[in-house]
């Protein structure tokens, strides 16, 4: 009798979803849940129309409008013509093909990676795709979730499958106790700074270790969210009691008996003891401090108390040109410190850090304080539900008193597709996930940091070590 080879959780989920494996072809992988939004879907629906086919299974597809929507006066028609057209096209497509849409004004509307988990659409053991690279967020629930391009969106709409080669596997373990002022965003910024913006390309990552399993679901999502920023196809965390408790009672999650039997299945989603990963990396939680990025990719990060490397300190000579270009863009000097550097804008939002816990963290830091003069602070909740919850808890009052602006849900200044843009040359400390040139608006300059660090900077008006403030 042949004994089955030990498998990682990733392999278990993948293998279970392979509909067809043929010699010379990539695997045809079944997709349990497909999220779509206004920016990467119109051309895919056009493709279906051209072929004269419908959506394979509308029950497995959910849509929302998030990337391109205003974060003020959402009840009014969108002012900008192209944005309006794109959202209207989504509306039209969803109506024509019978896809459920959480449109502007709907109580479930929000950033696609925030609403999936919040609604219980995201569950352990699933395969999940979306035409957005931060689909990796959903992996926090112990599933295979990854971003795809529009041609692939079309494939999934048409066939509920995607053609993919199985990626390699990487295990990243973080053990030990986190220091004061260090939160999950710091863990992931730290890991990326160590392995670079391309260090996990070609891999699917599993995060493990006691520093990870002690985190809440929302904090785990922040980690998985940024897997793509080190090039990984996705990142996941094995489901446990924390996961099951989060899911219980969510709108579209299995209920009652069905929930209990689902939990029994989900408990099997664990990497076998002797399973082999292609790469294993280990980090000590005690080495991590509050982090900040100084360059124009998320790998260019450091502890807020460190100084930027000098050109000579770079490991690879090849990188010198890009490094200098990046620092020129940021208006920063090699070898200098960032601590104390004035900021013009603070953006608290995005699928990385706009969940209710993030808003609570910010509120705990700013309660009874005021923002520094001259700093503009935008708090953009990740979803309508987060916005409502914040109001229920009175966080909106705390923000108002501090001089922060609480807006309506959307991607906002994370990618600057709507009018929420950081002006040229200005510095923004941001809880989002990308510090690319122009990401937050043409010539804008981004420091990526945790919600705690962003809130601290809002109060002091400069890059601050959160450990120096009382909160």
């Amino acid at each position: 009798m042949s004994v089955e080879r030990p498998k990682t959780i990733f392999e278990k989920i993948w293998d279970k979803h392979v509909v067809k494996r043929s010699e010379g072809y990539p695997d045809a992988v079944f997709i349990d849940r497909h999220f779509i939004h206004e920016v990467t879907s119109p051309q895919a629906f056009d493709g279906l129309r051209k072929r004269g086919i419908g959506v394979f299974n509308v029950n497995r597809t959910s849509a929302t409008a998030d990337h391109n929507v205003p974060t003020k006066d959402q009840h009014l028609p969108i002012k900008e013509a192209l944005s309006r057209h794109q959202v209207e096209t989504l509306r039209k497509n969803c109506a024509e093909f019978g896809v459920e849409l959480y449109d502007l004004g709907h109580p479930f509307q929000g950033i696609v990676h925030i609403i999936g988990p919040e609604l219980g659409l995201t569950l352990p053991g699933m395969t999940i795709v979306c035409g957005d690279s931060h689909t990796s967020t959903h992996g926090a629930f112990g599933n295979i979730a990854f971003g795809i391009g529009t041609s692939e969106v079309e494939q999934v709409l048409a066939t509920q499958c995607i053609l993919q080669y199985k990626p390699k596997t990487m295990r990243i373990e973080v053990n030990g106790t986190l220091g004061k002022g260090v939160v999950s965003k710091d863990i992931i910024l730290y890991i990326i700074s160590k392995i670079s913006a391309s260090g996990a390309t070609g891999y699917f990552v599993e995060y493990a270790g006691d520093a990870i399993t002690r985190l809440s679901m929302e904090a785990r999502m922040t980690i998985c969210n940024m897997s793509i920023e080190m090039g990984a196809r996705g990142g996941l965390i094995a489901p446990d009691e924390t996961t099951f408790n989060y899911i219980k009672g969510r709108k579209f999650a299995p209920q009652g008996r069905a929930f209990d039997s689902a939990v029994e299945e989900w408990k099997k989603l664990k990497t076998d003891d002797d399973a082999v990963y292609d790469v294993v990396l280990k980090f000590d939680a005690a080495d991590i401090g509050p982090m900040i990025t100084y360059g124009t990719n998320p790998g260019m990060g450091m502890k807020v108390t460190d100084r930027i490397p000098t050109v000579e300190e770079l490991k690879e000579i090849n990188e010198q040109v890009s490094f200098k270009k990046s620092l020129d863009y940021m208006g920063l000097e090699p070898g200098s410190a960032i601590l104390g550097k004035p900021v013009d804008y603070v953006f608290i939002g995005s699928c990385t850090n706009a969940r209710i816990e993030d808003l609570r963290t910010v509120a705990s830091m700013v309660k009874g304080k005021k923002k520094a003069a001259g700093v503009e602070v935008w708090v953009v909740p990740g979803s309508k539900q987060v916005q409502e919850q914040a109001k229920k808890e009175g966080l909106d009052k705390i923000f108002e008193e501090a001089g922060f602006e609480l807006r309506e849900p959307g991607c906002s200044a994370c990618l600057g597709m709507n009018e929420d843009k950081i002006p040229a040359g200005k510095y923004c400390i941001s809880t989002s996930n990308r510090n690319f040139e122009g990401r937050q608006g043409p010539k804008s300059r981004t420091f990526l940091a945790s919600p705690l660090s962003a809130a601290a900077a809002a109060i002091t008006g400069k890059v601050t070590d959160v450990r120096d403030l009382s909160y």
Partner: protein
Amino acid sequence: MSKEKFIKLVSQAVPLPIENIDTDQIIPARFLKATTREGFGDNLFRDWRYDSDNQPIAGFALNDSRYSGKILVAGKNFGCGSSREHAAWAIHDYGFKVVVSSFFADIFKNNALNNAVLPLVVSDAFLKELLDTLQANPSTEVIVDLENQTISFNNKKESFDINAYKKTCLINGYDDIDYLLSLNKEIKEYDLAHS
């Protein structure tokens, strides 16, 4: 939909010796509002190509009349960041058929292949030599032979990998979706058994 066939290409090439070029640089987000696939080439590398008054920025390779051709040669980790396929559309629409680098981000690689653009991986050493040669001598011809999986210029030659399935798709102008549609019955059965 990749309907153009690709076998061999002889062309000049445009050097872009920058690493970690992310898709936000290839096509900034504010140009993603279109609902069709056409016309993105005009905004390829928009913020490196034009200043805030829409004037071409001298010195950027795409504005440099010495450079032309259907091959783009770029530093390592090309196409990282956002999954936007608009990046591949912009490159294709501008007229590039091959991007050469020593390393590509995963999603970009798939998106390129789905749009008849070949992401061609070469060694770091070959890349450096090719970039240096192009900068010293912009009219250098580069030959990409997909059939035999080689890239060459002057008397330098290197083989490259491409998986057999994707190669067949490129050569014949096939789409993944055609293959997936042929599995309809199996997929339906799977869906029923797992709902």
